[in-house]
């Protein structure tokens, strides 16, 4: 009983940490974008203010049941991802529900949220939402290929389908997978551009073109849920990358340094590049990233 209570408490702590860190990263990315554009930019805690304001807005929109469930799906998928990814190694405050094969399970869970959101966006009947959804799903087809290739390469190379197994392998050999499977790392990082949807891959929510796409009919509390789920998901994804390729982290500080370093890659690439069209984005993902993914598989099979 004690153990279960501890786990639940730990899950709440994990969620709160993920929320705060994700929100702060979002604010920092806005600040970085502003500095690159030679602006002062909003304070780094601007996202918290925005979230609070969105949460305190009244919502009187009704488009049907699925529309209400869309953001909830996103949230569920983010929290599930967060619960499976080991945040810190050996820390009682960050329990995780890892099991044999959780890496494969994770692949499904991570696409579950966007799919639920797609259903919700479809029910609003807004044409912008529909276009946004088709774009989002095309982009997902694009980046899932290098991402899955990279993960499969890791699974073949280390004969395990669990994240903790891969972390144990890194701890055992003393080198990060980033160096022992460089091709998989490159492919995964390139796939990350699509996951984070920063420019040039912000084709889903293109604000001027699609009026923010799938979320165009969602204001106030819906946006609040989406924003928090996005923050949690950002943290979970970054932590997953750190676990898989950079040997995990022993304490929060190291985790923050590693995740932020990773987070800078899509952000900085984003502020300097304009948006792709949908087919350009898909072609990009099926080009070099997939090539590196295939190289990673070859390396895993033959070396």
């Amino acid at each position: 009983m004690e153990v279960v209570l501890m786990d639940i408490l730990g899950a709440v702590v994990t969620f709160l940490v993920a929320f705060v860190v994700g929100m702060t990263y979002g604010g920092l990315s806005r600040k970085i974008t502003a500095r690159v554009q030679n602006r002062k930019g909003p304070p780094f805690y601007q996202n918290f203010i925005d979230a609070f304001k969105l949460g305190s807005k009244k919502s009187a929109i009704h488009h049907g049941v699925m529309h209400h469930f869309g953001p909830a799906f996103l949230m569920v998928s983010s929290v599930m991802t967060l619960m499976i990814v080991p945040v810190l190694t050996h820390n009682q405050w960050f329990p995780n529900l890892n099991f044999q094969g959780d890496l494969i399970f994770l692949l499904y869970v991570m696409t579950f949220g966007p799919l639920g959101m797609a259903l919700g966006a479809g029910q609003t009947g807004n044409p912008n939402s529909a276009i946004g959804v088709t774009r989002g799903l095309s982009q997902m087809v694009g980046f899932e290929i290098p991402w899955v290739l990279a993960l499969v390469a890791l699974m073949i190379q280390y004969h395990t389908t669990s994240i903790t197994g891969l972390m144990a392998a890194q701890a055992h050999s003393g080198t990060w997978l980033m160096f022992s499977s460089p091709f998989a790392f490159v492919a995964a990082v390139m796939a990350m551009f699509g996951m984070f949807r920063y420019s040039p891959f912000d084709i889903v929510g293109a604000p001027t073109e699609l009026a923010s796409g799938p979320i165009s009919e969602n204001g106030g509390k819906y946006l609040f849920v989406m924003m928090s789920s996005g923050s949690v998901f950002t943290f979970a994804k970054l932590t997953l990358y750190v676990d898989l390729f950079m040997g995990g982290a022993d304490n929060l500080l190291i985790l923050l340094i590693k995740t932020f370093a990773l987070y800078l890659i899509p952000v900085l690439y984003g502020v300097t590049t304009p948006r792709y069209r949908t087919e350009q984005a898909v072609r990009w993902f099926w080009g070099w990233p997939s090539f590196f993914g295939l190289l990673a598989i070859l390396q895993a099979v033959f070396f």
Partner: protein
Amino acid sequence: MMNDKNSQKIVDIIQNWARKHSIWVLAYGTGCGAIEIPPTMTSRYDAERLGVRGAATPRQADVLLITGYLTVKTMKRVIRVYEQMQDPKYVIGFGSCTINGGMYYDSYNTIKVLDKYLPVDVYINGCMPRPEAVLSGFAQLQKRIAEGRANGAQQYKDNLEWYRANQKKIIPNWIMPDYNW
């Protein structure tokens, strides 16, 4: 606890503080004044440092920015946009045209006084107002929000019949599609 007057007051203060520092603007580019919005938002004047940022759709926006003259034809769309926005919402009238018709005072198909059709919280005068004036308008709005005096939306609800009558006077074929507020 929420019914308790004092605690409600504290909640209001906190919420108004957040609203004040996070203003999402739907810039309805009706007239020529819209050309001053890009410089306000970009590097030179950088409205984002005050928490002002663009929103893509009426559902997400807090402030409806009417940038200049409104023709009778656009009026209908503006009303619809305004009614789709979620509470609390504010309207900023931008440029002389929204105040008294400006240089279109004798035009046959623009409205003269915006306040008769939509509840305006803050006016920014000038033809066209420079970004400094726009920022000072936002500062004015922030002040009113903090003081809890930016309640145009409530006014609109209370006097809906009066507003509707005015709107219908200038829009002869009043066919609005069904939507919920």
